[in-house]
């Protein structure tokens, strides 16, 4: 499900990158049809709609499945939230077409896409065998991790602190993606035509209009890189024997490196559609990986001092607090 949503984000990126956002002027039908000829820009725009339809149905099915079979209330709520979010996302997609791609609606569409993706990722993590195993370990062994510092696993309080750092990283990556969406939909993607310098300088002489937006995205990339590297160092120093934590951090570092390379390629290829859309998708993947690190940190940080039910409640509380906060960030 999460991978399908990521592919949908890539397809959405291709719509914008090929300038096909208005290739189909009507909505919800396409030229009054369910299946118009898939020529030119229609291939990207209608293709995006078809993929979105499939993902929407899958998320709806997932929500129903969770409501019927998932014992944890917060996971059931996540399923419902994902289903509602994907409906709003579809409406935003239709609105942006009917209103001729106003920046605010297009940016909202891009921002909510990331939230839908994060919801599917959180559901995937919470229903994974690794997540359950962490809880089962706690219940069966009742081991307090504060007593296991000799294994290289630090006390729970330290894990909680790292989890907060990971949560901040996730928030920063989301803000950076929002900044990218603003840059993309206001046509500032090539406002600075060179890379890594900006008009041959570290800081461009002028920051007016699109240059300011574009440069802010580059500064944001630097900040995110710094924060991710610090997170990785922290996890490496304190939790390197815990593969369940270190693996997603390593993946996050790899995604970050790929993302920077794709950003450079976007400039050097003058926004060729494929690298530009991969940059969008890779950004979403990095956000998801950071979210996975965060969720696992919270999960691991609680194991040993809380029962499995309490663990779920704690993570559920985190998710329920984070969702409205994300919505507030998104609406600014």
């Amino acid at each position, binding site marked *: 499900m999460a991978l399908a949503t990521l592919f949908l984000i890539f397809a959405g990126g291709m719509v914008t990158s090929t300038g096909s956002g208005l290739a189909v002027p009507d909505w919800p039908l396409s030229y009054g049809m369910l299946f118009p000829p898939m020529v030119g820009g229609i291939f990207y725009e209608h293709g995006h709609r078809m993929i979105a339809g499939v993902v929407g149905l899958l998320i709806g099915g997932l929500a129903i499945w969770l409501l019927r079979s998932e014992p944890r209330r917060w996971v059931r709520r996540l399923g419902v939230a994902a289903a509602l979010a994907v409906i709003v996302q579809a409406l935003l997609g239709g609105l942006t077409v009917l209103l*001729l791609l106003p920046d605010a609606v297009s940016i909202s569409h891009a921002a909510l896409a990331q939230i839908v993706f994060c919801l599917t990722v959180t559901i995937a993590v919470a229903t994974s065998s690794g997540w359950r195993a962490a809880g089962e370990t706690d219940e069966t062994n009742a081991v307090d991790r504060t007593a296991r510092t000799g294994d290289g696993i630090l006390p729970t309080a330290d894990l909680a602190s790292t989890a907060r750092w990971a949560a901040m990283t996730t928030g920063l990556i989301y803000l950076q993606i929002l900044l990218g969406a603003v840059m993309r939909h206001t046509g500032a993607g090539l406002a600075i035509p060179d890379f890594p310098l900006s008009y041959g300088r570290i800081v461009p002489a002028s920051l007016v209009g699109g240059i300011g937006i574009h440069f802010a995205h580059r500064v944001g990339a630097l900040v995110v890189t710094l924060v991710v590297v610090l997170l990785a160092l922290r996890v490496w120093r304190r939790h390197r024997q815990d593969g369940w934590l270190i693996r997603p951090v390593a993946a996050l570092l790899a995604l970050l490196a790929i993302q920077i390379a794709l950003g450079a390629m976007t400039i050097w290829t003058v926004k060729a559609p494929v690298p530009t859309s991969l940059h969008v998708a890779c950004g979403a993947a990095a956000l998801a990986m950071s979210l996975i690190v965060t969720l696992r940190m919270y999960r691991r940080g609680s194991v040993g001092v809380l029962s499995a039910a309490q663990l779920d409640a704690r993570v559920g509380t985190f998710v329920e607090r984070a969702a409205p906060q994300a919505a507030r960030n998104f609406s600014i």
Partner: protein
Amino acid sequence: MRRVRLFLPLGLFVLLSGCGGSSKSPATDDSATGSRGKSPNATAVPLTVVDPATAGSIAGLITFEGTPPAEKLIDMKGDPACGRAHRDRMYTETAVVHGGKVQWAFVRISAGLEGKTFGVPAEPVVMDQSGCLYSPHLVGAVIGQVFRVLNSDETLHNVHAVCSANKAFNMAMPLKGMKQEKQFSAEEMVHLKCDVHPWMSAWVGVCENPYYAVSGADGGYTIRNVPPGSYTLEAWHETFGRQTMPITVDPSGAATADFTFKAAS
């Protein structure tokens, strides 16, 4: 309730975002000068009568100095119906220069006619979509005049007008033989494009008065039936930019105004 709080800001955000463009309605007054269309002004302003006996003309040549940018080869592989419509290679028309003569420049009287009101031509301005190209590439239209778009192709098009002073639109034209009509309400150069076929690009020069012309393949243009007076003449080209010059049209006179665009240094 928590869900409501989550999505309420989003809904308000979307509703308040709005869409640019003017919502001014086209003119509604009847013409009194032989033009059977609508007047560009909403109030009942007497139309200016142009005496054919004293009216003059403005003619000239649009030229280019230096090496013009090369036109790009159009790749129509994305839609086989477009490719079938052409035997020859097709190129974009963003900088058409033949022997230094510039085609597709838009020349108009941009100042000097203030306070005068002219009727809106009754006949529509027509632009066709043929062979997945706009034909012609550039037309002029008076505010309130009917702008008619045709689809002569076996494939579908969308007609997307990029405007700032006018209300933008995006029309679906999925069938061969379809016809859509629009009217513009403010002066500007309106860019038309088809997002299905990204090479398709055309312009509509929307004017308050009927004194405009489009340069031909020989770079020449002529504006006829101009009332005597002193004006500012403007030449606009989508790639080369905009130039103006003062000009005086004597009674029954033939004024000449040549414009020269230069390659960017």
